[in-house]
């Protein structure tokens, strides 16, 4: 691999220009980002990995150039640039994997009345009913939808895209939801063990 032998300040200075320094900096960064994405994205796709990596590297180079002023200087510039590339690539992989899944198929059915049965089954069903009710009562509709989608396995950036927000804001929304539920669970003395499935051995 060529040696992108620059200090952090030199990277920033070269990327801020628009002449041969910029071109040279991007060409020195390209193999660094290419290797980063080849070793991380490559194993995660079945076919067309080379073309996908090439496209992602191109997008990442543009993003690194455009966002270079956000680099805080507390790590190597190439570490920051590789993180920008990896985050962009993994967001794209998640988008491709989840693009055909609408949010509403992940949102829960209305809770059902517990079937009569053994005491343990009844207690378990009551606890389940209570948690579902607290989700309905304590959370906003947006919090409830986001929470259920994330619990169903949808990545946060994909939930965020469907709710017209971003991952950071969604994390804060879900954090607030968890704190509200924590208070409600604590008030009722509800713990994870109340939700153990009594039919499990």
């Amino acid at each position, binding site marked *: *691999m*060529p*040696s*992108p*032998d620059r200090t952090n300040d030199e*990277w920033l200075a070269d990327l801020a220009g628009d002449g041969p320094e910029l071109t040279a900096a991007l060409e020195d960064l390209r193999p*660094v980002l290419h*290797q*980063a*994405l080849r*070793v*991380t994205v490559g194993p995660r796709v079945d076919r067309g990995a080379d073309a996908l990596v090439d496209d992602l590297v191109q997008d990442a180079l543009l993003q690194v150039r455009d966002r270079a002023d956000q680099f*805080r200087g*507390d*790590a*190597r*510039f*190439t*570490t*920051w640039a*590789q*993180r920008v*590339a*990896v*985050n962009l*690539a*993994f967001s794209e992989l998640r988008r491709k994997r989840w693009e055909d899944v609408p949010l509403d198929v*992940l*949102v*829960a*059915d209305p809770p059902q009345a517990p079937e009569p049965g053994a005491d343990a089954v009844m207690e*378990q069903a009551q606890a*389940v009913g209570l*948690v*579902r009710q607290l*989700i309905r009562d304590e959370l906003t509709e947006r919090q409830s939808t986001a*929470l*259920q989608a994330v*619990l*169903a396995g949808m*990545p*946060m950036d994909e939930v965020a895209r469907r709710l017209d927000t971003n*991952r*950071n804001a969604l*994390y*804060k929304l879900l*954090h607030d939801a*968890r*704190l509200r*539920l*924590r208070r409600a*669970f*604590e008030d009722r003395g*509800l*713990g*994870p063990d*109340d*939700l*153990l*499935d009594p039919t499990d051995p």
Partner: protein
Amino acid sequence: MTLTPPVLRTLVARALASRPDELSCGDCETCVDRFAEMTLAGLDTREALPLVEEHLRTCRCCGEEFEALMVALRACSAQPHADG
């Protein structure tokens, strides 16, 4: 999909473990480069940056991206003259 007992159990455990001072994904992002380099150098990140460590453990997207970044950095450091 329904909120099945195992899913709700995860939710209850996670809610009860929630704290007001958790980092958001954006907060984590501003510290994770240094965290990654410290990890690569074998330094104690849990002691120095416990909230970052906790966010990476509990946030699936950030955790996945961090693991990938470490794979990339290890591949990079295995190459001569590749660390900028």
